[in-house]
């Protein structure tokens, strides 16, 4: 589905020095994958890799393929790809406090006549339709994360990219969220999860570790 080939990237540290983050790295999300965990030490580039997969970062060497087609590495082209095929869940939820839960979820659906219905369906799927009218600041951490997940899946994307989705949650809530991920995977959505949590990584179908600027397969 999504293939990264020969991806190289260097970053500039705060002291002005440069460091190679990725060196001819390859990644592919296969059709038979249900979920892939990406782990690695802090600063290894896990989040950056996820941003590249999401098309939020286009400043790298190498190619990005989707369904066999090499995508043009421009912000506009990648945004269109992201709009159609990718849902994103961040650790801090990225919910907007100036609108209701339902309006937050509707943001995830491209402008269409049935966006409200889709949003409701997404909230239903994650089990929080009763919170549709609430403002995000009134939600608990777990509820907010569920809203973010609902927003990510509202447009029914093929892939959901999640960056430390349970990083700020307690174990019980984490289990709830992971169970939700399982249900969505069963419904056909593929997950790529960046995590440093062993519990989360073990729940995934495939596990990759960022090490020495490369992705190395690890057993699950």
């Amino acid at each position, binding site marked *: 589905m999504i293939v990264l080939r020969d991806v190289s990237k260097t970053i500039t540290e705060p002291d002005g020095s440069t460091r190679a983050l990725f060196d001819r790295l390859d990644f592919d999300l296969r059709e038979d994958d249900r979920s892939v965990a990406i782990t690695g030490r802090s600063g290894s580039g896990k989040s950056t890799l996820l941003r590249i997969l999401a098309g939020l970062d286009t400043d790298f060497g190498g190619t990005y393929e989707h369904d066999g087609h090499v995508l043009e590495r421009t*912000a*506009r082209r990648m*945004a269109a790809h992201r709009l159609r095929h990718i849902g994103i869940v961040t650790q801090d939820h*990225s*919910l*907007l406090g*100036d609108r209701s839960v339902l309006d937050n979820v509707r*943001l*995830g659906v*491209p402008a269409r006549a049935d966006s409200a219905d889709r949003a409701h369906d997404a909230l239903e799927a994650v089990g929080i339709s009763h919170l549709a009218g609430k403002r995000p600041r009134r939600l608990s951490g777990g509820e907010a994360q569920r809203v973010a997940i609902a927003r990510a899946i509202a447009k029914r994307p093929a892939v959901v990219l999640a960056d430390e989705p349970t990083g700020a949650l307690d174990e019980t809530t984490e289990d709830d969220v992971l169970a939700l991920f399982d249900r969505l995977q069963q419904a056909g959505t593929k997950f790529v999860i960046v995590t440093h949590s062993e519990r989360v990584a073990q729940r995934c179908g495939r596990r990759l570790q960022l090490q020495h600027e490369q992705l190395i397969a690890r057993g699950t």
Partner: protein
Amino acid sequence: MELLNDLRSNWTIIVAKIVLLVLLTLCWHNVASFTQSTSQAVAQGLSADADVDLYTVVDDLDPDAFEAIRRDQHAVDDVASFVDRIDDEPGFDFISSYDQPITVQDFRGDDRFDVGYGTEYTLNGKYQDESGRSVQDIKSIQLNETAYEFAGLSVQDGKPIEWNAVDWGSGRIPVLLGNEYRGVYELGERLTRAVILQEQELEVIGFLEPDSAMYFRGEATHYLDDTVIVPYPPTLGGLDRAALDRLDPELFGRLVFQVLNADLAVEHSLDFGDVVARLYAIGDDTGFRSYTLLGVPAYLVQLSLVRQLIQDNLVLVTALLVVLTAGVGVVTAFLHRLLHHRRAPVARVHHLLGRSPDATNRLFRASRLTEYTAALGLFLTSSALLPNDSAMARLGAGTALLLWCVADGALGRRAVRIELTTQRRRGTPR
């Protein structure tokens, strides 16, 4: 939808920005317009198309010198030449008018036409002159064609004065009467009057429009309804001196000095120094130098003084404006940053969900346009309500405001672009 959300969340910051910008722009406008407007205000009492600076020319002769010149025909001719030259000078309008009362025999009007009625003079009413005739001193204005036109006077009934045909030596002068004279005298009537102590026959050729008024000696609106308008001859040098001298050997001298003491309307392009230089040259050519160029009358002087405040203190006003602009810049930069801080999460989420950076930037275009339109609209409305309204200053200040809005918008878009392309590192917040 983002417009409503944005305005709802950030209206206080947006309103604060608008208020500050409008006030600053009004300052730019005020300072720019004031230097224009003082001259306009100065000439307000004159004709509608007057857009000049005003001075007063007077002779500076003491009584003995005055009498000496009056008795010297050559010296009087010099004064006459001086007056005629000023009148002919390009850029100068010689507005000569004087309120010498005229003494009318067997005057038919009542006391409201008397020179003492409602003025600082004593109301004498009708009295007997040396010959035993019944006479009365009544209000009159003697003026030249320039003064007449400058005042925008017009005739309602009868015919206007044929200025080139006015001949004081003929003993018969065409006159206009103020509107209140209707029913007192008729068109074509001739009156025996003494004008500048010389007996003349005055022929009524017309009545002025009701409420006719003119600028006269510092009074912006000197009404003429109860006044006799006596025209001066078109030139002094061209007069039939022999005829005048037959009537009264001293008439010419009195006339010349009366005409000399006049107001001078000067085009804006000439400043005080230019006017002085030109008069000096005319004085050199004609041989008459005993004149003084006065600043404009008292209330007009204050206008000039405040204008002088602006001009003399232009450095201070400019410094104040520059520092004020910098101050407003600092405060609006802070507000801009605050606004961006509140808009950035919205931009990030939209970008995250698949909006391109350009499309994300356009999210706030409607808000920005609303803000800038409100600022421009408020400025244009406020500036039009100000007493010192000036189209040029408004255009200039409005353009500056527009440029400020363009820069503000560009900075806002840049900030959003940077926000979207910068990866936030976890750790110590900046």
